[in-house]
């Protein structure tokens, strides 16, 4: 499986949000897209799953342009876990996860045993099965995020897109969630693309990384080639110390705000 993003531009009204985004990724990888708020990361995710239509460029999955695919076909290839999750109506965890099977359920026959089993499996994988009958609105932020990942998993996607998966979570839950995601990526040999502004987490969990600034890719490659003190100074405006640590991989220590050139 090969995801190719080729020369993607996107603009809202007259404002260009993405410019010439080009990269490739394949199954089994964990790809982190980093950037500060407003750098166009979320817009890029939406262009990848055809939620937004790029003004230039194409996104292909195994050579097929996503814009030529129906929503249902896309849903079988890619699942997306979004940042916010507001539910007006109190669906149960089970009902919510089962929704993910939509693209695989025949409109006329309804859900089969296979769909129900997939739902249970996803709930077990994400460790939410113990509160499957509870309303999603009663859950904590971390539990809710896991339910959404379960819902994405039952789509049986080859690409899992995540928008700021650890936002607003306690530190221990951030680790729990990222461990879960990377484990699933290996087990199910999915391509996981996640967007984050958290450099520490990205440094620790990504196989490869992309750094974005102002709608453009400014650095891409293996994680330790992308997360460098220079890049962080130039694009995140922070001074950081980076060293290899056998326990955590790449260890980033933030020192402070970068001093603008010419003033120090």
């Amino acid at each position, binding site marked *: 499986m090969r995801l190719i993003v080729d020369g993607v531009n996107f603009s809202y009204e007259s404002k260009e949000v993405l410019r010439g985004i080009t990269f490739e990724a394949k199954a089994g990888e964990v790809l982190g897209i980093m950037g500060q708020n407003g750098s166009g990361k979320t817009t890029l995710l939406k262009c990848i799953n055809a939620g937004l239509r790029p003004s230039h460029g194409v996104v292909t999955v195994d050579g097929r342009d996503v814009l030529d695919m129906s929503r249902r076909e*896309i849903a079988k290839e890619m699942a997306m876990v*979004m940042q916010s999750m507001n*539910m*007006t109506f109190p*669906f149960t965890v089970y009902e919510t996860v089962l*929704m993910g099977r*939509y693209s695989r359920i025949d409109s006329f026959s309804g859900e089969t045993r296979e769909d129900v089993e997939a739902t249970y499996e996803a709930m077990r994988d994400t460790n939410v099965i113990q509160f499957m009958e509870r309303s999603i609105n009663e859950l904590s932020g971390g539990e809710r995020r896991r339910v959404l990942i379960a819902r994405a998993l039952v*789509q049986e996607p080859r690409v899992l897109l995540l928008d700021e998966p650890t936002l607003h979570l306690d530190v221990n839950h951030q680790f729990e969630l990222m461990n879960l995601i990377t484990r699933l990526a290996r087990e199910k040999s999915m391509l996981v693309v996640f967007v984050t502004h958290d450099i520490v987490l990205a440094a620790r969990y990504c196989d490869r990384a992309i750094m974005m600034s102002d709608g453009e890719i400014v650095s891409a490659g293996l994680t330790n080639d992308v997360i460098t003190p220079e890049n962080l100074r130039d694009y995140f405006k922070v001074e950081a110390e980076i060293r290899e640590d056998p326990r955590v991989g790449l260890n980033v220590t933030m020192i402070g705000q970068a001093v603008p050139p010419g003033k120090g």
Partner: protein
Amino acid sequence: MVGNYKLSPGQVFDILFRGGGSSGDRYILFDVRIPRLLCCCLVGAGLSVSGLAMQSLFKNPMASPSILGISSGAAFGASIAISFGVGAGLFGSFNTPVLAFVFCFITMGIVYAIAKTRYGVATVTLLLAGVAVGAFFNGMVSLMQYIADEDTLSAIVYWTMGSFNKCGWMSFRMAIVPVTAGIIAIVMMVRELNLVSAGEEQAANMGVNVRLVRIAAIVATSLCVGGSVAISGTIGFVGLIVPHIFRMIVGPNHKVLAPLCILGGAAFMMAMDTIAKAAFEVSLPVGVLTALLGAPFFVYVLRTRRRDIWE
């Protein structure tokens, strides 16, 4: 199964299963009471299930079938038919129901056209367009009432209060096709409604063609509302209360909710109509009764479930 023509249960049984009763008894049962009951069922089911669809589409438990202003449009259509006899040349006696139905769809078209931009249709814009167009048509109805003479005024007012008093087999035949089509369409998209009601963008990510579902839900609602108002006038609150009550009882899953709304809506409307025509010395328009019961309920829901509505 009660009415102002006195028939004991025994007599009804006798008429139904043994072909007994006088011609008057039989006529009242077969040509007055039964078609009226069927009309109640149709309208109750149609309004409830389309109310459910609208609540899901707008992710707002306070939405109702009239939220897109289509009932107001229908009321305007009926008003011009009553006041000026518009359409009488083409549809004869049926100009009022036909114009109500037609204006229901015209309003729907206007609202959709207003809400449509080149980026698609935003649900909130759709809602606001519905409110604006509804207000406009309400104003037009008021204008019609203002310029109408006393007889016409009372006819318009009576129509807008909603009643099954004029419902016979002809009404049932007129409404059965559009309302049933609308109900079936909604039942066929319960799964999509589940996903859309949990979030449109996420529904799209999971493979739902949200644009298609939105149009289908709106057209189905217009069919239900158009068919209903054509025969009974505008009856408020049913489409709000019934889905809401059932959601509180069984949760938000449309696979369960839709059939319950159809059955419950039909039962609720039959009960309301029975109370409206038989409980008081004068027979009340049923729309008055549903509003009298509905308004306090609306307030109750607002007070107790504020979080759900605004979150």
